[in-house]
């Protein structure tokens, strides 16, 4: 049941219009971070306030929402955001990737291929890929405007000189439509190749007050070198629950004696595979 005390999807209409204008500009300039007047949300920063605001501005009453946190539908962050929209927007929710029309995600892209009719909303902690290389916003703005991305390649090169390979494993920088270098949010680099998808991808960073987007079928290239090409790595195991050899795995420590198991990070994917066998 919708909480009648709130406007549809919690935010007031003027706030939604402001976010919607930012989303349109973000789609028009793929990978560019559009500033927006992020609001206080009834959850702490770091819990997806940016993603929640983007979802609130995007949802219609007919939508079916799925929320995942590191691939899982049943973790605290996912459950609380799903309940939030059940109460304030009255939308239907689901855990099945294929049934969802809007998917809000923290740090994963679902294993199942997304379709034209779906929208993927990412929660983003630090939207600026150059932030840890250059702390000044005025400078990073200028670097983006001049396509001055050499520093990012130096960072990847230092990975190679220290570790013999590009050791950056998540939030692996990408270049969108041949122009802007973008932080894909802290998804594992295993997910990077999936970003060239049929669905619309929207990114919301609440604390940092930025929205950016990747339209469908947009070229998304992970930065690399000719002699050290990008590799989408995963743990060298199969899922101990469903046997999948193609999914991204979580390593779970089972006891104090070094026992461990590897399981799919995407709970819906793992569950669907086990159902199919049973």
């Amino acid at each position, binding site marked *: 049941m919708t909480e009648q005390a709130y*406007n*549809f*999807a919690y935010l007031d*209409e*003027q706030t*939604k*219009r*402001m976010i*919607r*204008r*930012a*989303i*349109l*500009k*973000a*789609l*028009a*300039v*793929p990978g*560019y971070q*559009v*500033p927006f007047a992020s609001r206080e949300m009834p959850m702490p920063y770091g819990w997806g306030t940016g993603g929640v605001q983007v979802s609130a*501005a*995007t*949802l*219609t*009453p007919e939508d079916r929402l799925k929320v995942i946190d590191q691939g899982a539908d049943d973790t605290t962050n996912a459950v609380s955001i799903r309940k939030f929209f059940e109460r304030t927007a009255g939308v239907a929710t689901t855990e099945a990737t294929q049934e969802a029309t809007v998917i809000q995600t923290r740090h994963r892209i679902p294993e199942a291929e997304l379709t034209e009719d779906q929208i993927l909303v990412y929660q983003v902690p630090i939207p600026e890929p150059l932030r840890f290389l250059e702390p000044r916003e005025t400078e990073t*703005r*200028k670097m*983006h*405007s*001049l396509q001055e991305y050499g520093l990012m390649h130096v960072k990847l090169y230092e990975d190679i000189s220290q570790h013999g390979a590009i050791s950056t494993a998540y939030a692996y920088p990408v270049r969108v*439509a041949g*122009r*802007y270098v973008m932080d894909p949010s802290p998804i594992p680099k295993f997910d990077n190749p999936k970003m060239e998808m*049929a669905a*619309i991808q929207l990114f919301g960073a609440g604390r940092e007050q930025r929205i950016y*987007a*990747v*339209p*469908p*079928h*947009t*070229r998304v290239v992970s930065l690399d070198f000719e002699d050290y090409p990008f590799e989408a790595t995963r743990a060298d195991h199969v899922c101990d629950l469903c046997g999948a050899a193609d999914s991204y795995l979580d390593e779970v420590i089972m006891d104090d004696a070094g026992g461990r198991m590897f399981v799919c990070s995407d709970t819906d994917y793992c569950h669907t595979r086990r159902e199919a066998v049973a």
Partner: protein
Amino acid sequence: MDGSSLYAGGFRNAPVDAAHAFRAAMTAMARPGDIRPITGAEPPAPLSVAAGTLLLTLCDPETRVHLAGAADRPEVRQWLSFHTGAPLCGADEADFALGTWADLMPLSRYRIGTPEYPDRSATLIVECDALANTGAVLSGPGIRDTARLSLPDLGVLQGNAMLYPLGCDFFFTCGDRVAALPRSTTIGAEG
């Protein structure tokens, strides 16, 4: 003018109507060439339903709107002010501009953003007599291979795309349908 039409023609259920309209507008912007139905507003003539709905969905006291040519009528101004509170302005200050292609031109009057903030550019809502998936060949972000869209002036729009990442973005409206052309789209002549 008839007093009733000034207040009439707004969203019946603002949050839901605006959500549906925005979804249509966003999908159009994300998939250049896609033509989507968009309804909810009943604006005074000569505005189309699609153009009126876009204005109600995106404009408020924080956005400056330029009404070009035939769209700049007292009925439209009053309707827009009553329903959105958006201040009217000249073309060079506009966040949104509305009119026919001929009335909106020349394109050089509009803001194209700055190198650091390319989002600070105008969005043009272009009223069209026809809207069809024929004519110019579009490619780029949001388009799987190529798409086609009836565009008013290839040369001007190609020039706008050359400014990328700066430039204006466009909605094309006809009746209750909308299509969009972001600056990121590569435009080829009919082939």
